[in-house]
């Protein structure tokens, strides 16, 4: 099994979620994060002081999937999260040793 972690633009969350559901993904976990990268941040001004803010709000999606879905999920996320402008984000893929569904105790692919 794989754990796919995607960093995307916040306003793309609904689109990505819907696209994943369509290809049969049944669960995911979402975190509010701040990203730093090629996309430059912005300036803020408070009472005469200027601050350069390097971190941009992003959303991190984590999805555990059976190995055979890997390519499909990557493609789907890529398509749904893409705006073509800088800061669209990244997808990272890790191996998952095992997965457990707490409620039932099921493990392995049927637990994702």
């Amino acid at each position, binding site marked *: 099994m794989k754990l796919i972690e995607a960093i995307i633009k916040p306003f793309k969350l609904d689109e990505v979620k819907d696209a994943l559901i369509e290809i049969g993904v049944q669960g995911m976990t979402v975190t509010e994060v701040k990203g730093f990268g090629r996309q430059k941040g912005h300036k803020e*001004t408070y009472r005469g002081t200027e601050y350069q803010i390097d971190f941009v709000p992003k959303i991190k999606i984590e999805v555990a999937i059976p190995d055979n879905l890997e390519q499909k999920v990557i493609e789907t996320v890529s398509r749904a999260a893409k705006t073509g402008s800088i800061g669209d984000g990244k997808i990272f893929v890790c191996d998952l040793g095992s997965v457990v569904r707490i409620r039932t105790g099921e493990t392995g692919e049927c637990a994702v």
Partner: protein
Amino acid sequence: MIFRPRFHKLFSKTLAMFFLCGLAVGVFAQEAWAASEISAGDTAWILTSSALVLAMTAPGLVLFYGGMVRGKNVLGTMMHSFISLCVVSVVWVLWGYSLAFSTDIGGVIGGLEWFGLNGVGPEPGQAAPTIPHLAFMVFQLMFAVITVALITGSIAERMKFGAFLLFAVLWSTFIYSPLAHWVWGGGWLGELGALDFAGGTVVHISSGVAALVCALVLGKRHGYGKDTMAPHNLPFTVVGACLLWFGWFGFNAGSALAADGIAASAFVTTNTAAAVAALTWMAAEWVYRGKPTVLGAASGAVAGLVAITPAAGFVGPMSSILIGIGAGVFCYLAVLWKNKLGYDDALDVLAIHGIGGTWGAIATGLFASVGGGTGLFFGNPGQVVTQIIAVVATWVFVLVGTFIILKIVDGIIGLRVTKEDEVLGLDLSQHNERGYISS
């Protein structure tokens, strides 16, 4: 309710103490309650104004300042204003009012004959013949409160709570009461003819200058100039500015001490100066930084309110527009200067209250035309000189006095929290609490 032994003892001891104190009060009380010629309309207005001025400190400043610090210091900062209200309320009824307003001693201070409000009752006093003496007293109390609360903007995020309590008692007693006496209580500045309608020198210059001294003596916050110290909750600050504006009508129009034409006039100049100064500051920033900021507009409004304070009942509405423009420009520049000079007056008390108050006091000497005052532009150049004397005297007295008080407090308690406590934040380190708990 079950009284457990331990509390029970405490309870009965406390009760016994009360009986003794109560008897003392009963025996020695000489509070005379005579009928007198009170105007219900004027009294209604001054009581309302007193409540409005309270609202300036709490929740006005509580929110205005509380929103501007980092989240880990929100409670500590709000507490500064809130506890100023508590401490100064007690100081004022015990001795502060007496020092400021009872019989003059040598032009510099009042006596102690009104200690504990002895002799201050429901009948009218000298200062305001159509309202109860107690109403005048409590209206003045709210001014004493907010002056101390204003200072706390400069000590934000790093002063020991205990040290601040002691500072508040000393500063209110030895700086505020004399100053109020000088201008309004029969002291030398009032005699000289200095005009201060609602506290440009007494409240705003004094708090602003005290703030400067505090900033210099306490030193900069850890990480100042390096870390982001942006306001954690600007909506609070905007709401605080709105409440300051709201309450300021009591501050300025209430200073007419009657519900009459002067009050209405002061009401109008107050509103106008605030509006103009907000627009001016915003415009200055728009030109200088490329964007008009919300904090800038809110700050400008407060600057305008400060500047019109000494002038409110003495000038016409068109003059208040010019005073507002000056407030917006000068106070914004003062904020920029701070950044260049590098002292850490965290929430810009000097820039807004010190500089705004100074400009307002001088502007009163320029534009006074009604309500018994006449300024330079209306044929009385001497008034400007008098105003400058008042300004300089206030600056010098507050500079020196505040410095001495801080050194005393430093000696007894120590002024600053440790670096760890500062990094952790005042909320946890001073009060064992956090402002926001998310789960």
